[in-house]
């Protein structure tokens, strides 16, 4: 963690990041004018591309594929060095040799969501019709749109049924959307720290973040790329506010308490006297280096619109009627962004649909972000769930025997 890093001195983001939006350092599936992505808003998006990474090998039966769905600010770089930040993959606690999602046993796929900024078509990509960056001309996308695009990718990869779809937070929403839209294509599902709809409180937090971005004069009505600016202050503030919601009071207290940052006494200024301030500023400023501000607007909006029950006349259970998919729903005790009560509502609906569902609440003080962290009980449950499902799926022996 760096010392005071005021969020006012950020340059226009690196060329690396802008380059990734069109030419990602990963695999790319391109879909032409003949294969439009049919969006919920009524637009047919074409052409478009999906950037993705794979780990492991697809077996001869094509039965061992796992799709990982990433969260709001995640991307396809699950288990490799990130091309922009140079940091390890965002889920290498969960994915890797000897981990619950072991590429020795499974063919693991993760794609950047549509609307993202790491190589799948989104507001940071160039619009081939104009030659300019899409910006706010990009159509508003939804969680079902993201999943529709993923399904086209899975088709392209020649996979009929996914062994598992797994993800946390916004990724968990995609998992649920997969099971509601394509139940026959998902053998088992691992939705983590998520909900079947975005709550009013969560919409409120997202609105706060969007307003912070749009209030930045450098946002320029979304045309900051053309005008060679970047709303880094607004985006950093949005990230700082959001980051608080990913933690918990207890975790913040344990990590920082009221400790001072490299000083003994208060400076009687608005400098970052407290460690927690310095930490948040760092979170904000490092985020703007890797993320596109407009993409942040689009993806938070997609989460806001998410409500599976609304798509089924208000009856959540109807979304899962007759479903054969095995579920393992996981929540964390200190997660107040997607609290256990949301997972419980999902479990009730799945029970009402007679789905085969397990539900575990993991005790931790690490808040919503717990799904990204080293939480052994969570891994143990994920591993056992996948092993049992693998057995039922008839996957070759050796699944996660470590």
């Amino acid at each position: 963690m760096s010392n005071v890093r005021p969020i006012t001195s950020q340059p226009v983001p690196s060329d690396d990041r802008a380059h990734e939006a069109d030419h990602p350092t990963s695999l790319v599936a391109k879909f032409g004018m003949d294969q439009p992505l049919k969006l919920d808003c009524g637009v047919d998006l074409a052409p478009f591309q999906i950037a993705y990474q794979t780990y492991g090998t697809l077996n001869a039966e094509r039965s061992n594929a796992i799709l990982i769905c990433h969260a709001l600010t995640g991307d396809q770089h699950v288990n490799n060095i990130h091309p922009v930040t140079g940091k390890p993959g965002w889920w290498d606690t969960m994915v890797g040799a000897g981990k619950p999602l072991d590429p020795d046993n499974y063919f693991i796929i993760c794609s950047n969501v549509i609307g993202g900024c790491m190589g799948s078509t989104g507001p940071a990509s160039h619009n081939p019709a104009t030659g300019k960056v899409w910006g706010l001309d990009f159509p508003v996308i939804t969680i079902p749109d993201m999943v529709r695009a993923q399904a086209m990718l899975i088709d392209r990869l020649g996979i009929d049924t996914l062994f598992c779809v797994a993800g946390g937070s916004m990724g968990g929403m995609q998992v649920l959307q997969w099971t509601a839209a394509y139940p026959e294509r998902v053998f088992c599902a691992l939705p983590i720290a998520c909900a079947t709809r975005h709550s009013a409180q969560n919409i409120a937090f997202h609105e706060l973040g969007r307003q912070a971005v749009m209030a930045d004069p450098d946002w320029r009505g979304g045309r900051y790329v053309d005008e060679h600016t970047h709303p880094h202050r607004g985006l950093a503030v949005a990230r700082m506010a959001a980051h608080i919601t990913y933690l918990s009071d207890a975790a913040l207290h344990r990590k920082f308490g009221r400790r001072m940052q490299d000083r003994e006494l208060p400076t009687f200024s608005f400098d970052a006297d407290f460690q927690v301030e310095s930490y948040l500023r760092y979170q904000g400023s490092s985020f703007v280096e890797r993320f596109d501000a407009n993409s942040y607007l689009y993806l938070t909006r997609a989460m806001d619109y998410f409500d599976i029950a609304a798509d089924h006349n208000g009856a959540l259970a109807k979304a899962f009627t007759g479903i054969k998919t095995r579920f393992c729903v996981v929540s964390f005790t200190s997660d107040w962004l997607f609290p256990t009560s949301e997972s419980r509502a999902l479990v009730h609906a799945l029970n009402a649909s007679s789905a085969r569902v397990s539900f575990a609440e993991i005790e931790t003080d690490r808040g919503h972000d717990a799904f990204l962290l080293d939480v052994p009980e969570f891994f143990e449950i994920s591993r056992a769930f996948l092993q049992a499902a693998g057995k039922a799926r008839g996957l070759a022996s050796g699944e996660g025997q470590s």
Partner: protein
Amino acid sequence: MSMQQTLPLPGVTPERTGGHRTDHLLVADMVRPGSRVLDVGCGDGELLQLLESRGIDGRGIELSREGVNRCVAKGLAVVQGDADTDLVNYPDDAFDYVILSQTLQATRQPRVVLENLLRIGQRAIVSFPNFGFWKMRLQLLVGGHMPRTENLPATWYDTANIHFCTIKDFVQLCDEINVKMERAVALDLYGRPVPLNLPWWVWNMFGEQGVFLLSRGGGK
């Protein structure tokens, strides 16, 4: 309320037959192969594992987080929940059997729970400690204090068991809410069936617990 108190309770080592608890085998034998079962208060999932090994599609509810997580880690389909509050969320006829093992006496509303069991399941299998067991009677009659046994060691002020009943009481409740008893077995302290086909009052005296296979009665 604790849902992990499958008989026998702390202090008594259950008898085992072929690696399985004798009382579990008795319950499992009451379940037709190929059916769907909900085990309410499934503890660490030992009974569910036995049922699944027989090709039965088993689900569980368990109150304690530790119990749930142990079950899920075994690959069982178990959710965290409470018999008093969560059974209402299950639809009618969702299961062929609903099992409630050693938990009825710890629920706040045993009658409502029992009605829910037979709404959710075509049949219910219910076991509970018999407060009419001779040791209980003797302690109250001679000792003049609330009974405590090897299987029920808690004192009156810290017990989770707030609705004790005798086998006779339970039979009366079944009558009252029009529940049909298809099978009834009394078990001794170690979970072994009391072998003889004896009259009710004998079981009510010598059965440490009762196990009942119930179904919905005909319209009254």
